[in-house]
């Protein structure tokens, strides 16, 4: 840790961090899990899913974008925040068409894993069942299923910042906001490659690789073994 050490508090636990770190990164190091969907190691913070909402000195902030400061008091696992986070996860489930039972991502899906962690059996909001989400299977190695997209922008950022390609960007606004590809029509018309980082980072089953489906059987997948966040909580001293 650098010489500029900052001390602050998360749910009464003292946490040490360096200047410029975000609350989320500092919490990760300290073994405190703050749930998240759009945040991803190696990508710039984005702050769109709002699952990581915490209360800092009484104000709601996204932990993934908020820098640490000396003496701040962060609330993380309070009843109020857990309720807000559960509501956001519910919103994402009803906004798209998420049918875990026949999704290839099941067991590796971060949205599904968060729902399990929060004990969500069924969302409290009515399903929207959008009928205008399509599937782009034009590319030989990759497909996009817009039914499952949660608009987290991980693919947008990974393609731009890690692959240097800008294959993805958002179009439209409000409830009509969608991921689009850098071509007049389909994914096959872009320069995306199956080895691109953008293909790896999708938290849900919206961007998947072809030819490798179910290579790892259901039951032996990442979140079948341990709940989401367990790896971070293992850092706890």
């Amino acid at each position, binding site marked *: 840790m650098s010489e500029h050490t900052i001390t602050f508090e998360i749910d009464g636990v003292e946490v040490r961090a360096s200047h410029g770190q975000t609350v989320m990164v500092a919490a990760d190091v300290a073994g405190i899990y703050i749930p998240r969907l759009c945040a991803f190691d190696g990508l710039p913070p984005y702050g769109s*899913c709002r699952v990581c909402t915490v209360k800092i000195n009484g104000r709601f902030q996204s932990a993934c974008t908020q820098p640490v400061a000396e003496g701040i008091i962060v609330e993380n696992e309070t009843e109020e925040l857990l*309720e807000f986070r559960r509501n*956001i996860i519910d*919103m994402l489930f009803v906004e798209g068409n998420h049918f875990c039972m026949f999704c290839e991502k099941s067991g590796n899906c971060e949205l599904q894993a968060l729902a399990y962690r929060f004990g969500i059996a069924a969302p409290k909001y009515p399903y929207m069942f959008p009928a205008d989400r399509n599937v782009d299977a034009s590319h030989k190695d990759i497909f996009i299923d817009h039914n499952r997209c949660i608009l987290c922008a991980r693919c947008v950022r990974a393609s731009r910042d890690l692959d240097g390609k800008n294959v993805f*960007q958002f179009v*439209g606004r409000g409830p009509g906001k969608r991921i689009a590809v*850098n*071509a007049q029509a389909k994914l096959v018309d872009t320069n995306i490659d199956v080895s691109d980082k953008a293909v790896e980072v999708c938290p849900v089953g919206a961007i998947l690789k072809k030819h490798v489906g179910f290579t790892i059987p259901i039951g032996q997948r990442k979140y079948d073994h341990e709940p989401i966040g367990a790896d971070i909580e293992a850092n706890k001293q």
Partner: protein
Amino acid sequence: MSDNLETVVKTICTGFENDKTRMIDIVRELQECLGHVSDDAMDLIAEQVGTHRVEVESVVSFYAFFSKEQKGKITIRLCDDIIDRMFGFERIKQAFSDTLGISVGETTPDGLITLEVTPCIGMCDQAPAVMINDEIFTELSGDAAVEIVEQLRAGIPPERLRRRLGDGNNSNPLVSAAVSNNIRKFGEVIFAPLECGNALRKALSMSPNEVVRAVKTARLRGRGGAGFPTGMKWDFTRAAEGERKFVICNADEGEPGTFKDRVILTERPELLIEGMVIAGYAIGAQEGVIYLRGEYAYLRPFLEDTLQKARNMGMLGNDVMGHNGFNFDIRIQMGAGAYICGEETALISSCEGLRGDPKNRPPFPAQKGYLDCPTSVNNVETLCCVARIIDQGAGWFSQIGSKGSTGTKLLSIGGDIRRPGVYEVPFGMTMHDVLEMAGGTGAAAVQVGGPSGELIGPDMYDRIICYDDLATGGALMVFGPERNLLEVVEYFMDFFIEESCGYCTPCRVGNVLLKQRLVDIIHGQGEPSDLTYLEELGASVKATSRCGLGQTSPNPILSSLKNFRPLYQALVKEGQQFQPTFNIQNALSTAKDIAGRPSMHFAE
């Protein structure tokens, strides 16, 4: 790909030095020129300015005034605001629709005219209103609509349609708009007579620090709605490191019911320019930008001319007013139909040629704003106040109004009142006195501060217009006893759904869910627990949304639930079977279509 398209795109892009941060201007010009921005055009723009086509599409698809599909040569946009709905929107819509033979969203078969609706265009005091290309027509009747269509079909361009010109500068040849100022009360700050250049001359005789101190001593707070202390904002911007700094004037007045900035821009643009130059001097900026909402494009030639006159007088340009080394100039950035761009970081995104997505804070604009440079974004009215403070003194200003809310406030008052228009009043007036002044006694409710504000009833008319009580950017919408307030609430929710940028989950999804349940209740399908559902969901959206839009978007529901609960209670029914919001016939409709017969078990 036609050669012609290539030439047009090239010419337009080159006109903006192939600068991709000027994307809004590039797309705007192409849209005006060709009536749409096609797939091919997006490819060409991307190539010309050196970006990716999906970035161009991202911008084109974000703003309401841009479209991928071919539009007519003329676009008629009906102002679909709640006040317009109260004063004949349906009648006008029907008249245009019948005469043109098309529905809203369609274009006439000859490709001449497209008919659309748009949220508030800032003409609530003269509803119903429409925009025809950039021209504004107000207080329309059905007959006038028919006549307009006939003239357009006869080949008369929108700017030469017959109309009665408005008062003041509305009849200036560069404006020539059928818009009325309706200034009902002239106060001593904004609408007092103006001696051009006085304030700026005084400012330049002070040090920048003294200017900031004067603004602080006057206790000036932002007039756009949030009420942040202006002097403090300037201090931050001034202290931030950076060679290049900016002053941006937020003239994206889009809160439904607000129209006071339109009147300032028409009658006091010189005062605004002086305020901006003073701001530039105070924070050490060299460049200013006026972000003008797309709906006010008709004011642009007049404002450009006013800027030119200021340049000729030496108030803009190098060595402003002979002050050695202080260079400052202003450009106008047009918006393109997006309410969210009134949010200061979304406005900056838009100025940079991007979608109008708000930015993450920190860093704040004062540290890292437009083009990553320290930027102060101030409201039109705030900047005008600055010029008066410097001219008349901080002491003079701080004696007007109330202790925590110094100076005057422009109120845009519309709806069920006898004298709609703009009123400049000192802070501290009660709502009761405001209503009496505007001829609205007997009002059943007032929406204070637009949809993001608060709906109050007669038992609250002793509340006070000031930052500590009824804080408002100035919009007051007055509703008489015969109005259906839940219809108003539903309209406001539709507005937020339409105008959400969609960046964060709670605002994008939560508002749709809120509105759905509200509609269920209005249709008699709600039960008492649904009121708790709305309150809990609303609290979630407010707490977790990323910017001011989402943090206030549940207010129409939450404030009406708080202040007008009996309206909801009369509609919800206790002890209904199962889930009253669930409608079995709706749920079965797809299955019925497939089966080609009604359900055997659930009779209709």
